C-alpha cells in the first residue's frame, strides 16, 4: 500500500489505523504467558495430585482442586502486582521528597 503514488495523497489517504501488533511483536508476551501456563500446571499438579494408586485419571476432587488452584494462582499474582505497584509509587514519592530536601529538585 505505502510507497506508491506519493503525488495524490487524498486518494491513498486511509483513515489512521491503530498499528495492529505484528506476530513478531507479540512473541515476548506469548512466551511469558506460556511460561506462566507451564508454571501453573506445575504448581497445581504438585499441590493437587498426590494419589497414583488408582487406574482412573484425574478424579473429580482432584479436578476441582486444580480449578480452584488456577483461579487462586491468578488472584495471588494480581494482588502481588497491585501491592508491588503501590510499593513502587511510595518509593518514588519518598525519593522525590528526599530529592527536594537535599536540593536536587527545585
Amino acid at each position: 500500500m505505502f510507497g506508491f503514488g506519493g503525488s495524490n495523497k487524498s486518494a491513498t489517504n486511509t483513515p489512521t489505523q491503530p498499528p495492529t501488533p505484528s506476530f513478531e511483536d507479540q512473541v515476548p508476551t506469548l512466551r511469558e504467558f506460556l511460561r506462566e501456563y507451564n508454571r501453573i500446571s506445575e504448581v497445581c499438579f504438585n499441590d493437587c495430585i498426590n494419589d497414583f494408586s488408582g487406574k482412573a485419571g484425574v478424579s473429580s476432587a482432584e479436578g476441582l482442586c486444580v480449578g480452584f488452584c488456577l483461579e487462586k494462582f491468578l488472584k495471588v499474582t494480581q494482588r502481588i502486582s497491585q501491592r508491588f505497584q503501590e510499593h513502587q509509587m511510595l518509593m518514588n514519592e519518598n525519593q522525590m521528597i528526599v530529592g527536594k530536601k537535599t536540593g536536587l529538585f527545585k
Partner: protein
Amino acid sequence: MASELNQNQLQLAGDLEIEMMTDLYKKMTNSCHKKCVIPRYKDAELTKAESVCIDRCVAKYMDVHDRIGKQLASMTVQQQSGVDVDPSKIVGSY
C-alpha cells in the same frame, strides 16, 4: 487475512512451541521423580510400583496441563467478550 502467518512467523511459533514443550517436560520430570521415587537407593532398578506410578503421573500431568489450558482459554474468551473486541469498533474510536 491477518491471522495467516508467513514462513518466518511459522518458524518463530515452532521454536516457541519447542521451548515450551521442553519446559513442560523438565517440570514434569521433576514432579514425577519427586512424587514417585522413594529416595532410598538400594537398587538401580525401578520397582514395579515406581514404574506404574511414573506412567500414571505422566498421564495425570498431561491431563492437568490440558484442563488448565482449557480453563485459561475460556477465561480469556470471557474477558475479551466483556471488553468488546470487535476490531472495527476499536478502529472507529481512534
